[in-house]
Structures are given as structure tokens and as C-alpha cells.
């Protein structure tokens, strides 16, 4: 087998994996404390379904992966806490003045409001405003922690919708 042949197999395999990752399913590492306690700061790997790309069929309370609007090359994991048309009270806990309790934002058409589960250590819609659905890459349905033993399937657990399932 020539080098050309091997190269062509490599190219085809890499592209197949890439297309699967963008359109169907991705298994990827997450980092950062913004989704504690749902996702750990390190060692957590998430299962992402790409059917929900561009905000298709997403509901309030779903966990998503999206491009960060101010830096599209990095991706963020957040939870949807407001759908289009919702009126949002932007976090009054950060400031001392009374006015913060009267600052509301209407989520525009085709946008969602996203926040991290760990509100005190999360850079999210409270900073960069609601994000367009076009930036959403997929929905997180489950996670693994590889530091856990094999008997628990490496810490496998489902990531549930915090708004509808846990009510």
C-alpha cells in the first residue's frame, strides 16, 4: 500500500468523524466551573446530540452546547433559562442598588437566554445578552466521569431537563 493510499484513507476517516460530530453525535470533554454541580470542573465528558443544532426542538431547562457570541471559536455549556418572548429579570444579586430589580430584558425572536448552573461563577447571558439559536451546536443528554470506577459505567448519568423533569 502506497503512502498516497494511506493518506486517502486517513482523509476519508477524519472527514467522516468530523461530519458525524457536526451533524449527529459528539462525545467531548468539558472544563470549567460554570455548570457545577451538574458537570464537574474537570474529567467530565458529555454526550451531545446534534439533532438539536440551531435550537431545533429545544425546551426551557435543556442543557446545550453553543458557540460563545463574543468568541465563536470557543464553546460553552449552559442551560436554557428563557425562551423567545420571555421577560427576564437580569440578576439583581450582583449590584446593591434597587434599580437592578427593575431591569428586565425581553428575549427577542429566535434567541434564547442561557445561564450556567453555578450562577456565581458563570459568564453567560447576563454578560453577553441572549444568544441567537443559530449559535447552538447541540443538546447535552448524558455525561461520563472517567475518574469513577468501571462498576458505575465510569460515572455515567443522564443530564435531565431541570425545568420540566424535576418539577
Amino acid at each position: 500500500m502506497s503512502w498516497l493510499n494511506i493518506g486517502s484513507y486517513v482523509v476519508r476517516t477524519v472527514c467522516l468523524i468530523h461530519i458525524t460530530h457536526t451533524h449527529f453525535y459528539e462525545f467531548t470533554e468539558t472544563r470549567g466551573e460554570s455548570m457545577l454541580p451538574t458537570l464537574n470542573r474537570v474529567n467530565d465528558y458529555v454526550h451531545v446530540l446534534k439533532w438539536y443544532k440551531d435550537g431545533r426542538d429545544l425546551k426551557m431547562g435543556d442543557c446545550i452546547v453553543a458557540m460563545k457570541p463574543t468568541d465563536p471559536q470557543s464553546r460553552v455549556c449552559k442551560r436554557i433559562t428563557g425562551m423567545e418572548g420571555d421577560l427576564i429579570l437580569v440578576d439583581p444579586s450582583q449590584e446593591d442598588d434597587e434599580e437592578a430589580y427593575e431591569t428586565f430584558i425581553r428575549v427577542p425572536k429566535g434567541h434564547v437566554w442561557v445561564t450556567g448552573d453555578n450562577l456565581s461563577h458563570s459568564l453567560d447571558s447576563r454578560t453577553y445578552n441572549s444568544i441567537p439559536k443559530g449559535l447552538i451546536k447541540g443538546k447535552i443528554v448524558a455525561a461520563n466521569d472517567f475518574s469513577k470506577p468501571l462498576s458505575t459505567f465510569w460515572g455515567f448519568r443522564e443530564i435531565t431537563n431541570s425545568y420540566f423533569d424535576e418539577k
Partner: protein
Amino acid sequence: MVNYGSYALRSAVITVSWIPVILTFTEHVCYVAKIEGSSMRPTLNPTDSFNNESDWVLLWKFNLKQAKNWKENDVVLFKSPSNPKKVYCKRVKGVQFDQVKTRSPYPKDTCLIPRNHLWVEGDNVYHSVDSNNFGPISTGLALGKAVKIVWPPSRWSADLNMSEGRGDIKVFPTMEHS
């Protein structure tokens, strides 16, 4: 005959195995797109032709998430912020950290464009839904940069920079922001 059958199967498998490569290429390197509507007149779709022939453009898609690859007067195709299934074609009138003069219905007179965002407007200023309606867009929504008209052949020589909409709308074009 047996050989013929296995040959056909083998060719089919090889053909299918190249499909992801083609898709990756069209998603990240270049592709063509059809332009609809009149918002980029006179640059694109300059007349209402009787047989409804639209312009097709060559899209360059490589590394467009990086704001430094965008400059003023590039023609951009991007997912509409209000509906991800819709694709808009507009002209970039300002890049990150620029301050631009807006137009009604934008609520303020000027807008400071955030990091990795673009200010986009149609060349046909009065018939265009653009950043004056929905504000600056994230470069993450960009699908490609129109570089050349590929169809119909009569439009091959057309210049994509023939019109610049409202012209230079930057407030302090020489001011350094960092």
C-alpha cells in the same frame, strides 16, 4: 459475471466513502449559494429579470469565525439571528470595536460593535432588514464570504464592490480601540 457484481459493489463503497470529504469541503472551504431578494441591489440581483434568474455566488468559508478575517465591505452570508433556518446576504459595514452611525429603526444614534461581531447592511438601504433591525451579529453566525458571481455567465465580470450602501458610516475611522 460474479466479478462484475463485486466490482460494482466496490465502486459504490468507494464513492460513498468520499461523501464526507466533499461535505467537509463544502462546509469549511468553499461552496456556491443562490442570492434571493433585492436587498443587495445594485450589486447582486440588479434587475427583476422576466424569467426570475437569480445570481449565484462563490462562497469562501475558510476560517471565518475569526474576526480578523473580516474587513469592511466584504459581502457576507449569515444565519439570520431571528430565524436560524433563514440565510441573509449583506455587506459588512463595521468590524469589532468600530463605532458606526446607525439608521432608524435602531434605538440609538451610534453603536459600538462588540468583540467578534459585525455590523451588516444591505446595499439597497431602504429595502433591507439588517443590523439596524437586529443589531450587530456574532461572527459565529457567518456562513461565508461572497467572492465572485459564478452564474449567470453574463454577470461574470460584475464587481462585488460596485456599491457600498450608505458609504463610510464609521464615526471615528482612524481612532484606535484596543
